[in-house]
């Protein structure tokens, strides 16, 4: 072993030690401000106000006394809402950062809420920021709030840890629309160039509770053209839209049978919508085939549902009801708002690329004229676990 080799070894080790001491990207968890919800509002002067809901992890027991609680049996996260303003979202973030002792961390952002004003002013640049940042999940849910985004994030929900978590859970339940950042971007860059985002509204607090102790819930759907919000539709219409987007997951449909008193409610088990585009003689036509499978969950009539005759009748009524919902949605969205949130444009494009390309630029005018034929087929699979209606004397049951 020569001196040269020894020197090499010593130098090697020391260089490594120097390299090891460099900790360019290392951040302790406790130096991070975990942002779970992000709200983007536009102020009157055109500036962007960014509201972040962050979770501050706190040791149980607090302070230096950790007797017995060392195992960390319970964890409480306190949420804090802070805002920052700036000309762009990025500006607003640096403004926000000034007010935080910990570094903002986007990796756990679950929802992005646009205030109504910001939505109306255009969301493209915000989406660009959100997708350009490698930390932010493309899967974060995007919502629009009826008032400001800040007012939504500020709420202190009684059940979940943070209002961001509430909004995420509500989105993921897919009762109404659910849109992620990726999907929003896809919608805006698709042929139709329109988007639909779920819209939230603050639930009035219960009596005796403070104003903030409530949640916001998804109740409407905001419709965007280009990247600007042009209007919104209520939950009923939204369900119609969901049928037309083949996104319906859960729905209860209540019908009455002709000549019978009382209601029958069916719950959706499985649904599928098929689109058959037609182009004939310069006419655009879309046949929408809806198939739904239901279970009966409530029988308010005197009918014994084990009779297949009644099942047929119920199916018929269910079809009518579904049809009605879809029609209503079409009326508002297609004829009045003229926004192709069903993505008919892409469907036509796929089937008739050449013809479609000719009308590509005029699609906004053509869309309202598309003739939509809705064909619904409903199947009642099971009557629940009851046979005859409960709580009814035998003789009154109609066979």
């Amino acid at each position, binding site marked *: 072993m020569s001196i040269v080799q020894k020197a090499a070894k010593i130098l090697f080790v020391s260089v490594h030690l120097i390299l090891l001491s460099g900790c360019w*990207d290392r951040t302790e968890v406790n130096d991070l401000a975990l942002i779970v919800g992000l709200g983007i509002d536009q102020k009157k002067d055109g500036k962007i106000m960014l509201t972040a809901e962050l979770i501050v992890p706190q040791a149980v027991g607090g302070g230096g006394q950790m007797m017995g609680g060392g195992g960390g049996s319970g964890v409480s996260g306190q949420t804090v809402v802070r805002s920052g303003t700036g000309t762009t979202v990025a500006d607003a973030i640096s403004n926000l950062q000034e007010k935080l002792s910990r570094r903002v961390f986007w990796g756990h952002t679950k929802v992005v809420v646009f205030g109504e004003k910001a939505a109306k002013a255009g969301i493209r640049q915000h989406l660009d920021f959100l997708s350009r940042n490698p930390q932010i*999940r493309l*899967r974060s849910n995007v919502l629009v709030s009826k008032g400001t985004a800040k007012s939504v994030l500020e709420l202190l929900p009684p059940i979940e840890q943070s209002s961001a978590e509430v909004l995420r859970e509500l989105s993921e339940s897919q009762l109404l629309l659910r849109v992620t950042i990726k999907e929003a971007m*896809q919608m805006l860059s698709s042929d139709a160039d329109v988007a639909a985002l779920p819209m939230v509204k603050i639930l009035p607090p219960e009596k005796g509770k403070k104003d903030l102790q409530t949640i916001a819930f998804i109740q409407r759907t905001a419709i965007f053209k280009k990247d600007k919000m042009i209007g919104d539709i209520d939950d009923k219409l939204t369900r119609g839209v969901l049928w037309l987007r083949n996104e319906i997951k859960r729905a209860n449909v209540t019908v009455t049978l002709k000549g019978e008193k009382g209601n029958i409610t069916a719950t959706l088990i499985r649904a599928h919508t098929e689109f058959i585009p037609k182009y004939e003689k310069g006419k655009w036509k879309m046949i929408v085939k809806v198939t739904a499978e239901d279970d009966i969950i409530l029988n308010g009539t005197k009918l014994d549902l084990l009779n297949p005759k009644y099942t047929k009748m119920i199916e018929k009524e269910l079809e009518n009801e579904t049809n009605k919902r879809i029609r209503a949605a079409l009326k508002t969205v297609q004829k009045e708002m003229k926004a192709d949130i069903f993505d008919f444009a892409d469907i036509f494009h796929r089937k008739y690329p050449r013809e479609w390309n000719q009308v590509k630029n005029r699609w906004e005018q053509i869309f309202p004229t598309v003739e939509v034929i809705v064909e619904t087929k409903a199947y009642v699979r099971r009557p629940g676990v009851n046979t005859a209606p409960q709580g009814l004397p035998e003789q009154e049951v109609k066979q």
Partner: protein
Amino acid sequence: MIEKGKISAMQMGIMMYPTITATAILLVPAITARYAKQDMWLSPFWASLIGFLTVYIAVQLHHLYPQKTLIEYSEDILGKFLGKAVGFIFLFFYLHANGIIIREYGEFVVGNFLSHTPLVVVMGSMILVCSFAVRSGVEVIGRLAEVIVPVVIILILANIILLIPDMKVENMFPIMEKGIMPSLMGAIIPQGWFTEFLLIAFLLPYVDDRNKGKKWGMISVTAVMLTLSLINIAVLFVLGGITSRFLYPAFSAVRYVSIADFLEHIEAIVMALWVAGVFVKIAVFYYALVLGTAQWLNLSDYRPITFPIGFLLLLFAVWSAPNLIELIHFLGSSSPFYRISIQTGIPLILLFIAKWRRKTNNQKLTQQG
């Protein structure tokens, strides 16, 4: 011979797989999507044709000069001076190409994960690890590939399976909306990657079951083609029309994976395993470069020049582009022609000359005889 190790033809095929795919799944899907749109899954099929051609050329040259590598037989074919010149072109090409590969790797890691870590540290640490593998010779690189490649393949498949819930098949239609041209245009860039199969010209002399070399080369090209196509399909199904808007579409798709609210954000793990694939890629290029240089200079051992060349590689990686935008611009414009002309064009010319020489030699012999 400088290299005493032996690899099997299968090892060679396995080594070549990450050598092509590792970086091809980064930037290429976006560039392909820009031209081919929803036909992007077709492009790898067209692109692979040049891969098959390159393997064929390399194997044919290998049959004419079984014991020699590209650098050595270019001298035999073109004569001392021209041969050295062509050898220098190859060496410069591999230095430059490997520099770009290392840069791509570094940019990817820094851009997505370690944004504050100096690029040089990220690239340098990789070169250091690679140089130990290169010093150990072709046998060790082959063995490493055998351990790493199954993991990489499982990783790719697992990710695609995890993405299935988010896939929309409709994104694929209309197929060939504007005819075959868009997909062909989209194939130009991946072609550049497929020409890298010329590297087998450096490995073939050390394959012990040499008659299987061609078979495994072809298998490797097919596997790469299928992988790229599969990845393109998966990306297309997940991202649809916005594929070309992402810098690393395959990676953005991975970021979208979410299973049961728990398996989210697995991209760091994916990156770590992908790094293993890039490791093989850089090591193979690096090995070819070091071996070629040693042969070009008629050295008796290639190991002493491993580290100096690694240092040069680091410099070339830094030097090859001032920023990522320039790099992508180069990769998306001139680079395919650059790669094809050097990795397929020159060997093709070499093959023609060699065949022609053989013929004239034989004729002379018969005339004399």
